[in-house]
């Protein structure tokens, strides 16, 4: 019994847990979870560790002094965190939901085939994808006699002077198509599937020519009797943000709307809804992660107590 509550034992158990965790990082993550982190023997090690910490702490709880308070805070906090984790695992729910724009659901999926109800209805009003502007690319210009293209950054409305010739940048569309009704050029979506740049060449002989340049079709330039050649090159199109505008309703009445993004979930009735992924081909659906975690409050109290404890032991106690 004395051994179970000893520091020696804690070092041994911790070493065993460390070794097992270490091995787990070298195998594929799903297998690691299955065979190590969620295995019975690993759980057994955690239980031994919990017993050890509980015994040590209880032994010292009889004696709460200025000297002991840091020890009690740190070790108690670990017990609280472990209890919180246990509550999360046994009483919590974690799953996902793929919602199409305009669609709603009152259930979500814990796994491929198992779905559970939500105490409310969730609707995806809109999914938004934003890009950083700087990625829209470069305009390459060269005259027919030259060998190399000159590079220019793309800023809508700006005018480039290429050896006396003026080229004006009119507009950029990420997913170019000609609208069959209005016969006007529009962007089909926000995804840069067919990036196009509209430029205007100021011709010295009077008359300006407007043309479209396509990043994916550099040779498509229609009739071209300018003495300059131009190419539009895209530079990456880095994603700035992806968000979902969600609407929560109960019994047909709208209760809450919120636009969620990574790092900013929606909270309602103990459920938290996270922006997890999205349809990167057509932007048709948004991937949500839905979690109900009743143990979280214990884990966070444990975290706070742990931080206070270590700060006390290592920074405050030495100067008391």
């Amino acid at each position: 019994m004395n051994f179970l509550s000893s520091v020696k034992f804690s070092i041994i158990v911790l070493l065993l847990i460390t070794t097992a965790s270490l091995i787990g990082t070298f195998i594929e993550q799903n297998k690691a979870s299955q065979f190590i982190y969620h295995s019975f023997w690993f759980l057994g090690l955690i239980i031994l560790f919990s017993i050890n910490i509980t015994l040590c702490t209880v032994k010292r709880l009889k004696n709460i002094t200025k000297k002991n308070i840091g020890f009690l805070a740190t070790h108690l906090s670990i017990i609280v965190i472990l209890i919180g984790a246990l509550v999360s695992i046994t009483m919590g729910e974690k799953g996902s939901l793929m919602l199409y724009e305009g669609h709603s659901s009152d259930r979500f999926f814990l796994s491929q085939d198992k779905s559970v109800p939500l105490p409310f209805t969730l609707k995806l009003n809109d999914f938004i994808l934003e890009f950083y502007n700087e990625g829209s690319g470069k305009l390459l210009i060269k005259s027919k006699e030259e060998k190399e293209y000159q590079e220019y950054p793309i800023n809508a409305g700006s005018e480039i002077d290429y050896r006396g010739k003026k080229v004006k940048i009119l507009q950029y569309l990420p997913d170019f198509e000609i609208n069959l009704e209005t016969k006007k050029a529009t962007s089909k979506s926000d995804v840069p599937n067919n990036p196009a740049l509209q430029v205007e060449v100021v011709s010295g002989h009077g008359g300006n020519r407007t043309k479209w340049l396509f990043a994916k079709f550099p040779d498509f330039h229609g009739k071209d009797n300018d003495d300059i050649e131009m190419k539009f090159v895209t530079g990456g199109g880095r994603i700035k943000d992806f968000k979902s505008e969600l609407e929560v309703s109960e019994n047909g009445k709208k209760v809450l709307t919120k636009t969620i993004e990574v790092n900013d979930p929606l909270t309602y009735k103990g459920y938290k809804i996270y922006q997890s992924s999205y349809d990167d081909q057509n932007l048709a659906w948004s991937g949500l992660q839905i979690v109900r975690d009743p143990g979280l409050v214990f884990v966070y109290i444990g975290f706070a107590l742990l931080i206070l404890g270590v700060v006390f032991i290592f920074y405050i106690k030495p100067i008391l």
Partner: protein
Amino acid sequence: MESTLINIGFVFYVAAVILYGIFLFGGINRIKRFATMALSSGFLLTLIAYIIRWQEAKRLPLSNMYESMFLFTLSLVFFYVIFEFKYKFNKIGFISSILALLLSSYLSFLGDSSIEPLVPALQSNWLTAHVVTYFIAYGALTISLITAIIALFPNPREKDRINFSNVTYRIISFAFPFLMMGLITGAVWAKQAWGDYWSWDPKETWSLITLFIYINYLHLPYTMRSALKKAVPNKSREDLLINIFAIVGYFAVVFTYFGVNYLLAGLHSYTN
């Protein structure tokens, strides 16, 4: 401007290595202060370069390998200078400035210094707390690695004045709460970002392994009678074990920082 300062800083680190080397191997005491000056100047230039990058990027630079190495350089040199000042011991200046020089050469010649916008997952205030606490810990722990190694070797003259096992313990004690806070801020951020404070991904698991090793290190003296105490001037087997733990702990730090990104795959691999 930023890269010019980094390059000049590099030159100062070279000077520091040479000057500390002359002091260490040539025994010329008078040169100590110039070595410290060279190293400190290198630090100041690196710091100013970092602030300039901060202004240009409009966010604290800590989002990729380049920026984290930048922060690591600052942390390492900062804690070395504090150590030197506190213990009035300059001999590990040589190895410390070599480390600073290696990091600085990465910043000057090998690393990609372009400022990239943040991917959505990193757009959070937790990024700052999480990365800064970790790099404060890493810088200090690097010094503890050096003192732990010295503690393994007999050197009676210095050991009368400084108990390197003890110094190692004190440095690790200082760094430990930061290591802990790094882990906790990471977990709270993970919960905020994808709904789970722990998913046993390699980076998380290795940061826990690192923490466990240092927790064991801190507890070891409680199982031993004479460990760390000045009363036992010769290298005892207890001190040997403790310092080996400190060194193994640092291997875990290095693996957590680099090994996971380059040798394993997971959620954290985008931080390259």
